[in-house]
């Protein structure tokens, strides 16, 4: 097991898309009461109905922070909602080096950003529906 690899530490120390994007509805904020990790995610849907911008903020351990950071990059890579919706828990664990690399006790850390992203997408999708381009 090599959880604290260079890649993760790099994302932890230099988080990508970090900050608080001001969007109307596409934001969510969730926390993990057992360790106090908190992550917010904001998405901005562009005119094409794709994700134009994403940001995350909050505080937490290496696993939750690095996973969230990597996740935002993945979202920007996929752009299209139908592709983003295909991201699942497996995808996230794969980004962290696969299940063998993440001890079960840390799954909740790993998935905090993902769960927050889903919530943000939900409110964001409502937004898309309300204002069809």
């Amino acid at each position: 097991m090599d959880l604290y690899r260079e890649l993760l530490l790099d994302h932890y120390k230099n988080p990508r898309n970090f900050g608080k994007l001001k969007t109307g509805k596409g934001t969510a904020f969730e926390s993990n009461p057992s360790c106090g990790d908190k992550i917010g995610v904001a998405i901005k849907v562009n005119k094409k109905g794709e994700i134009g911008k994403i940001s995350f903020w909050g505080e937490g351990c290496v696993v939750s922070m690095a996973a969230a950071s990597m996740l935002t990059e993945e979202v920007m890579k996929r752009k299209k909602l139908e592709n983003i919706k295909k991201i699942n828990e497996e995808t996230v664990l794969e980004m962290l080096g696969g299940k063998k690399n993440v001890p079960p006790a840390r799954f909740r850390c790993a998935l905090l950003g993902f769960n927050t992203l889903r919530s943000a997408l939900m409110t964001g999708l409502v937004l898309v529906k309300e204002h069809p381009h």
Partner: protein
Amino acid sequence: MVRENKKYFPIFETQQDLVYLDSAASALRPKAVIDKEKEYYEEYPVNIHRGVYRLAERAGEEYEFARKKLAEFIKAKIPEEIVWTRNATEAINLAAGTWGEKYVKNGDEIALTIMEHHANLVPWQQLAIRKGAKLKYLDINEEGKPEMNQKNWNKWISKKTKIAAITQASNVLGTINDVKAMIQLIKQINPRVKVLVDGAQAVPRMKVDVDDMGADFYAATGHKMYGPNGVGWLWARKELLEEMPPYQTGGGMIEEVKKYQTIFAGLPDKFEAGTVNIPGVLGLGAAVKFLNGLGMTNIRKHEIEINRYALKRLKEIRGLKVLGSGEPEERTGIYSFWVDGVHPHDLAQILSGENIAVRAGHHCAQPLHDRLGLVATTRASIGVYTSRADVDKLINGIDKAIKLLRG
């Protein structure tokens, strides 16, 4: 002395480089305890209660002998004042669910301290909700000790207080409460208040005299006192146990059952319904014998010695803060701390890579962490087997984590 103590614990035979610093969660188990459970299963693995054949007699005798040994260990007047439970949590639920259910009424007050473990908090909180009673918390000071000024106390304990539930030793702060003085003060303000002491962390670490401290109830758990899992105990004064309704009903706790009514058995059977954890109780008896063999005075001396060394070494780490008292004599070997720039989960994980076992989280004391403005801490807690070399490895591990994560 400590190197010698490791030899009693079989786990060190197969895991020589294990640094076990999670004894506040569960202590490791000595061979004597494991052997006692094995003896039961191999030699007389039968039920107790009115067995007339020889094996049942033997099991029954061993079972009551363990009760007697524990009674002597904690200075209970008679063995029947001890009720076996599954753990400390069940012991406290038993007190809240029987004595509390019977006597706590709408408008009454229940007094707790802010440092209580959830096990000594949630059962009282839920009782208060059921009854419309009010919870009152005693705060702590900078050193993690209970506020002891008159003004706070007069708010904490009143004429309406029915029961106070306080821990003897905090599972987070390392604080040792002077429960004897606290009980005296409580009863000075209101002599009718009953006091339950949570001894889960104190029993394995110091001499306990339930009678002398003036408690009415005392709860503890087997797995933290080097005994088996699945067994704990409640001590209560005989008069109280007699006036309390049974906790669970069924077999083993009856004198006579008719179709429409039942006469309950006397102590201690009244509170031990169903087939009990016989090997667990026997193992706990062996744990008491083990603790007696080492001597509680020696155990405490060793703890203070490790405290002195560990507190000094931990203080050397920049950005590390240990909760609770800095005086080795005033505290237990339970060190909760945070390190600037290093999340407790990461620290515990990185230490695990070095085969060092510590715990990260709120340690079942969320209201306490809220009070301290922390969400999680890392906790290292020692046992009778802990050596200075273990402390050194911990310090090196923390250094390593800091190098990896800071900057």
